């Protein structure tokens, strides 16, 4: 009998031990969940540039990430000055688009910045993104250009508006939430103005005010936090949605206390 019990225990132990065959998790890289859009060389500066995004380029606000490698030593660069120049080539004419400055320091090996595309790629023309890098190791500057395909998917999160007082053309885009959900959503909006065809500096001196409503129900939502102007022309606040469905977010642009422009975004809130 004792032998039998020992046998049973033995089988049980083997069974349970045998079941535990989960592999140790492989080390994860931050770029695993991202999409590599392009890679190329800024030849004069001896830098290899890899460009990543979290979702494909679309009209409106796009976060973009760069991984830089010194092509002579093969070492990863985590300190550099990068400038972005988006360029729309429409054949007869060209124009730029607003950008959010790229950080000088890489986080987890990635430099992050953003581009606000004002129109989709297509028959009208194509977008090129010119990337200028300064390799601090050899103190050389150079650039490269990637053609990027911009879809029309995010056009509901981007507006151009003209101010009533001095007819400034403003570029307003919702950086987040890209996919609004029921609950508390961190809200970030970028605001730039058009100085000339290739220059879109951040629009200083404006404040943004928003109000979410559900037009078919005539109600809003409580406890929203109005955005404040942070660094880089990004306005951060909080927007709350209490149920799923079609919401409208009205945005007022104020200069001091005067309302100089207004617009609205149509958002589909999911669960």
């Amino acid at each position: 009998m004792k032998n039998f019990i020992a046998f049973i225990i033995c089988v049980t132990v083997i069974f349970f031990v045998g079941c535990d065959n989960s592999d140790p998790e492989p080390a994860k890289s931050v770029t695993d969940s991202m999409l590599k859009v392009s890679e190329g060389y800024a030849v004069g500066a001896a830098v290899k540039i890899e460009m990543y995004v979290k979702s494909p380029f679309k009209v409106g606000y796009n976060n973009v990430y760069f991984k830089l490698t010194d092509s002579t030593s093969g070492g990863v660069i985590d300190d550099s000055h990068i400038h972005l120049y988006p360029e729309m080539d429409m054949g007869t004419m060209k124009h730029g688009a607003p950008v959010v400055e790229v950080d000088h320091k890489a986080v987890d090996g990635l430099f992050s910045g953003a581009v606000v595309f004002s129109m989709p790629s297509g028959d009208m023309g194509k977008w090129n993104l010119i990337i200028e890098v300064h390799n601090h190791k050899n103190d050389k500057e150079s650039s490269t250009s990637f053609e990027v395909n911009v879809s029309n998917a995010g056009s509901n999160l981007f507006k151009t508006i003209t101010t009533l007082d001095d007819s400034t053309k403003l570029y307003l885009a919702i950086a987040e939430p890209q996919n609004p959900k029921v609950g508390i959503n961190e809200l970030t909006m970028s605001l730039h103005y058009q100085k000339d065809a290739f220059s879109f500096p951040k629009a200083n001196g404006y404040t943004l005010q928003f109000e979410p409503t559900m037009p078919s129900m005539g109600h809003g939502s409580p406890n929203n936090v109005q955005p404040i102007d942070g660094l880089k022309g990004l306005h951060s606040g909080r927007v709350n949605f209490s149920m799923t469905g079609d919401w409208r977010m009205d945005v007022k642009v104020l200069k001091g206390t005067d309302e100089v422009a207004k617009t609205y975004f149509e958002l589909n809130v999911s669960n």
Partner: protein
Amino acid sequence: MLATDNEEGFRGKPSLTIVIKLSVFLLLFLIIEALSQHFVTSDTLRERICLSEIEVDHLRTKDTLHSKAHASVSTDDMLGRMPELGMIRRGAFAMEPTIRGYSTSQINVNIDGMRIHGACTDKMDPATSYVEPINLDHIQVQTQADASRYGSSTGGTLYLGLRQPIINRDKPVSIQYTTGYGSNAQAWNQTGALNLSKSKSALRISGVYRQAQPYVAGGGERILYSGYGKYNVMLSAKHLVTNCSYLKADVLIDEGRNIGYPALLMDVSRAQSQVYALEHFYGPCIGNLQHVKTKIYFNNVHHIMDDSKRPNVSIRMDMPGWSNTIGTFAELAWSIHPKHYLQIRPEWVRHYSKAEMTMYPSQGAAMYMLTWPDNVRWQLGSFVQYSYTANSNNKVDFSVRVDEVRNQVFSEFGIRQMEVLLQSQDAKPIHWSLHLGALWEHQWSSKLRFSYSISYNERPPGATELFGFFIYNVLDGYDLIGNPKLRTEKSVRNSVTCLWYSSIFQLQTSVYYDKINDFIIGRTLSSDFSPMTLGANGVRMFVNHSSGNMAGFESKILAKVVKNIQFNHTLRYQKGWFDDGSNIPLIAPLRSINTLKYGSNSRSIVLESEWSAWRRRVNQEYGEKSTPSFVVVHLRANYPIFIKTHKLQLGVGVENMLDTKYREHLDWGGIPRPGRNIYANLSYAW
């Protein structure tokens, strides 16, 4: 736009699942039945077991179906005639009971020891709507010190005791059947019960089918959306395991279809409940132990609100709800000494609820939210009562109850919704509640009894009060939201009851005064909160609002005036006010029901009047309006018809004889009650 059935908590075809469950139950019964042949029988003891559950105590309100005006009445009609109770009416069906002005989460509604909670956020399906008079053995309104026996409450308990199968070897088969018709709503009612008995076991099957069209109010106006249909089936099997113990299994299924709620914006396409229970009872065989009863139960309620029958609505919507409860308890009664009696009742309950709202705008995406985010409440508690009989004239009871109630919201969607409102993530509130009570009963003289009861009670907030999300209240026009930070509500209740009785006259009077602290009620929030419902006045959140007071009295007279003439009278008065002087909402004024009966039970004429005073104590902040006094008169007659040896009982009557247009004070939406109704019931019992 009916909600689909394949939602969580309700899978597959309902009718088929019921049939399967019933067949399994029948099979179980047959097995028990077969086994039973091996045991010895003892007739004397059996009777004691059958009766042991009915404690007769004149000082407590125990209405053994005296409120039953005629053979086809509904549970609502019966409850509405009990003086301690008020009925909040939103339609012709499923009224919500209140006890001495306390409502909803302030009271317990308990069915045979089991907790059952409706699945509707708008209280369209109180637990009482899922039981029929034929299921019931007795109804008990507990307002005294031991009212927390079946759960912590600040206002009292409405206890509905279920009928048991009767074990009687001499009567293996007994049948009762009633068919009835009411002219006003062209209402057909079929009620039947069958009791099968062997020497050691019995099976009882009962069924009810009701169908009513929209009724006509006094004066001739037809009240649209007031029709309903329902059926109710109950199976109960009881088996004597030994001379001292029995096993009992119950299945109770109730389903209402196309129930209209004229006072609300929506109707109900289906309201279904299923109750399953298994009970073991150990009787008075050994020593001082009186009994030990243990029970395990499960119930499942599914409620679908929709507005597909309403022609003009601002927005179409579906609002399904789910609620299920699983619980177990034990009851132990121990006579330590002829003078010392101890009762202990530990209990564990798990309750799940969820309710959704989906709105379909004329264009654009459907809008969805959880009005009750998926939440579970675990309750662990125990009630202990010690009774001391000092002498034949004095008895005191001391009772204690302690509960721990844990709540948790499970759905991440629900938590995010709550954060929008409250900016917090308190999705797991825990409450402790305490009850302490003392009752003194005194026999003053051979004809006068007296009792004084005092109790301190706490009750945890309910799911709506904690987690409700934009639940529209038609009465005040506000959207209500829950508050997970609520504290328990507390009450100190005092009451004095006197009973004066002789062989021909009985007068019982109760007077009470209660103080309620941390009263839970919705208070208006700042205008930053915009209501969800189109046209709502604003948003209210449940808070512990100051303190309130309840006071009032009830009196009942039963008199045999002369031979064959009996007079029955009830009178009640309730008053509730907050410390700031405003009135507590939903409290009806002075009301009296008087009945004069000539004849015996089977051959009689009954004249009856219901009278209520003008209601002036209203709270306009909660949408209440002053409502006028009314009196309605009913005439009923009972007559036996003999066909050979079989006796058929005929009951006919005219309700609201004068076709008075009136509304009871707690009726919502200014909807008048039914006008003249001529009914006839034919009953057969064998």
